[in-house]
């Protein structure tokens, strides 16, 4: 194959090294070497400091609770969407991913505005004021983060359910005892590998999350790694070495979790795919199940979309914030301000759009090349590239951002992209490359070897094989990867906060700074527009993918 030569390995590896590995090395160097010598004082200080241990405890606790929280939401949801009459409504899948697309800091701002004293809830139902105190605790934080992260686990579980070969279930039906026992003995073990993979990723994602801890966590005095790193970099007095030390610490924790995940994932892996597709069986369903499914789905949708979006939209429409929800206190002023020529909010939004589109395209091309090279990761080189190109998925974004800042400010560099827009795109590409690789890889994995064999027998030349067979078959995966990259880039906050050049703001940093120093209504108006664009984008891509699939059949 084309992308198998030694040269392509060198090129790909160089790219991955330059963009993903160098920042990590920069962090290590900065942490351990002071004034040209090995200097361990900072690292030593890290462990003397009881605040660091408390931060570690906080992060771990949050991770575990969010794992539980997302399971409570995602597992029933996946079953409902595959085993009940609700499986017909494919639009639900898009709706259920809206919480994940919603920038987490916006979601938590929405919840804060809703639940705080004198907030929207109390204005609507004054008797609900007792809830406020309970909500502003770790419970509220876990709730918000679980509602944000569950779509991730849900999609993984749902796909595992869908892939599960019908013959297993038929066999169970015939030889097994009752339905409940079958579920525990057959379905659950088959789900285990996907579940473990998913839930540990949720754990890592929780550790890596910045938006919610920065908004909600600061409110309740709950400090985690990411907020502490950001604080050392942006609060006075600045302590960059403390930030890199903490980054290194967080990085190690995530690597350990990732190692565990691999170990467990391998132990519980079963072959649940075979050449035959599962036959779709008609579902007979009793009404309590239908009712429960609808109620459960509605509650999840109200909590994950209804409440935060109500607050966001209401805030963006408020004239006088202190007046609350009163008739006559609503106007489109914030939107008018936003759309009057060259307003800061609009410029910021357009910047986000440009950065995200560029990132989606660059990572799609790179991810495609890397995924084709890695394939199933059989040779050592493939494994190495696989590991390194996926590191941004294991290592929290803020660590990479800190590394990129250190690396691109190194005194020996002849030229630097620091303080240019290119730096932003590079940072985004580093952070989100794993998405496009994974999406391409998973659609590659679905291609049976027989396709390649017949292609090499009947195909004219390699390029034709790529052009007519491989790329078209992989296209839905590539497009899905682009879509994800676009959406995640649109909401990236911490990279923007730390590396944007002067005069440049993204939608995310604009919204954040409006809350810090400016006008909340305009900030929320930008949030509404951002989310609207992403939702439209998502429906469009879903449509393109569907067409692609139909054409393939």
């Amino acid at each position: 194959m084309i992308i198998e030569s030694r040269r392509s390995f060198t090129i790909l590896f160089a790219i991955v090294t330059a963009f993903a590995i160098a920042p990590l090395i920069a962090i290590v160097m900065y942490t351990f070497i002071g004034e040209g010598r090995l200097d361990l004082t900072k690292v030593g200080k890290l462990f003397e400091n009881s605040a660091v241990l408390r931060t570690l405890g906080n992060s771990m606790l949050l991770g575990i609770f969010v794992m539980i929280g997302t399971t409570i939401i995602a597992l029933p949801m996946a079953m409902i969407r595959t085993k009940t009459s609700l499986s017909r409504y494919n639009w639900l899948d898009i709706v259920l991913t809206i919480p994940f697309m919603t920038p987490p800091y916006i979601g938590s701002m929405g919840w804060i505005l809703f639940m705080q004293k004198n907030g929207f809830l109390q204005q609507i139902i004054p008797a609900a004021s007792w809830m406020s105190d309970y909500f502003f605790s770790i419970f509220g934080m876990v709730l918000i983060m679980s509602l944000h992260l569950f779509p991730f686990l849900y999609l993984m579980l749902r796909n595992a359910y869908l892939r599960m070969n019908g013959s297993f279930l038929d066999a169970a039906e015939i030889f097994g005892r009752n339905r409940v026992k079958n579920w525990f003995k057959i379905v659950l073990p088959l789900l285990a590998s996907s579940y473990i993979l998913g839930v540990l990723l949720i754990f890592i994602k929780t550790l890596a999350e910045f938006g919610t801890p920065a908004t909600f966590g600061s409110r309740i005095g709950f400090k985690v790694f990411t907020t502490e790193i950001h604080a050392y970099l942006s609060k006075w007095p600045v302590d960059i070495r403390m930030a890199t030390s903490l980054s290194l610490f967080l990085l190690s924790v995530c690597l350990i979790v990732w190692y565990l995940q691999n170990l467990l994932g391998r132990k519980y892996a079963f072959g649940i795919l075979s050449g035959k597709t599962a036959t779709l069986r008609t579902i007979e369903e009793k009404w309590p199940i239908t009712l429960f499914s609808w109620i459960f789905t509605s509650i999840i949708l109200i909590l994950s979309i209804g409440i935060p979006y109500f607050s966001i939209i209401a805030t963006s429409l408020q004239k006088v914030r202190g007046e609350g929800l009163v008739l006559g206190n609503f106007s489109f002023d914030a939107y008018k301000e936003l759309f009057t020529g060259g307003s800061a909010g609009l410029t910021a939004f357009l910047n986000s759009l440009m950065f995200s589109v560029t990132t989606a395209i660059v990572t799609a091309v790179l991810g495609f090349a890397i995924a084709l090279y890695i394939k199933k990761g059989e040779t050592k080189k493939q494994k190495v590239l696989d590991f390194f190109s996926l590191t941004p998925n294991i290592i929290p974004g803020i660590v990479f951002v800190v590394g990129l800042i250190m690396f691109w400010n190194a005194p020996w560099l002849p030229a630097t992209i620091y303080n240019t827009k290119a730096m932003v795109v590079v940072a985004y590409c580093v952070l989100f490359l794993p998405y496009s690789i994974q999406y391409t890889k998973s659609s590659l994995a679905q291609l049976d070897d027989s396709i390649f064999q017949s292609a090499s027998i009947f195909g004219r030349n390699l390029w034709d094989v790529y052009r007519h067979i491989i790329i078209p078959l992989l296209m839905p995966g590539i497009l899905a990867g682009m879509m994800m990259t676009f959406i995640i880039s649109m909401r990236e906050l911490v990279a923007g906060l730390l590396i944007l050049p002067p005069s440049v703001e993204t939608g995310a940093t604009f919204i954040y700074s409006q809350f810090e120093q400016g006008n909340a209504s305009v900030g929320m108006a930008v949030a509404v527009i951002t989310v609207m664009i992403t939702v439209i984008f998502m429906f469009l891509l879903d449509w393109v993918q569907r067409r692609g699939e139909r054409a393939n059949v």
Partner: protein
Amino acid sequence: MKKNTFKMFAVTGAALTFALAGCGSNTDKSSEKASAKPKEEKVLTVYSAGPDGLAQNIEKAFEEKTGKKIEMFQGTTGKILSRLEAEKNNPVADVVVLASAASMDGLKQSDQLQAYKDAENADKINFDWSDGEGYYHVYSASALGIAYNTKNVKDGPKKWTDLADSKWKGKLNMPDPSLSGSALDFIFGYAAADKSAWKTIESWKKNELQVNGANKEALESVITGEKDATISGVDYMAYKAKAEGEPVEITYPESGTVISPRAVAIMKDAKNVEGAKAYVDFLLSDEGQKLVADAYLLPGNKDIAVKNRAALDEIPQLEVDWKGSEAKQVDVLNKFNDMFR
């Protein structure tokens, strides 16, 4: 059907090619820009700590007046200081505008500023906080008071110690001094001028004083009625909110409060010194000072009238010496953080 797939692929392929070409030209552009930089030093890079609207108005007026273009990074004082620190090897900023004279003095002490002694109009500035050697100029100030929600509070507190009353329990907040330069200035100034200050702060803590966010975040809680009052509220933000019809009022305790000076300086490594000097001149000029007053800040030039706010001589002041205070501020901050952790 197959044709369709191919079409889709072709379209995407074309899009990719265009995009890549776009990327290429993008990087070309930036390298062009880099190589063109030594030739024309027209662009002036300003790192400015709020207020949001003022910084933009000044940028616009300055660009119109001088024809020089400004690249601006806006953030809190803490963010700007950390950015300067991270960029030490690769300095970018020409001018810095901070919301804290103490931090500015710190930059001077660590040899990061250059003097501009004969700045135009420097003699008209009525604050004596500017650096005597001309390393930084205090162009404006804000007074720190108690901002309160007029719906929840009928008569505002008169003294700092009033807030120790149990009727304020759970209803107070304050900006985080590690985020907000002015809040740090407040604690520092208050503790320096009043011996019982820490005792009073302790009593606020007993009243469940919430410390979080930058200035606007703290004020926002008062505006929405979540909290009743903000200690160390930046007055210009409160005046602005009030002018927009929000139910908020600001008061300065009779016992005196801290006035937090805001300063501008030229970086030692500034590449565009001419532009930087012009910027400082503009900030101190009558036109610049008028923009400052329009943003409800206290202008440095007392000849410029303030509108809809208390003038400098109407505010009871605590005497604070800002020179060389940066190191002492770290101690104050640590003490405060330990207390509220």
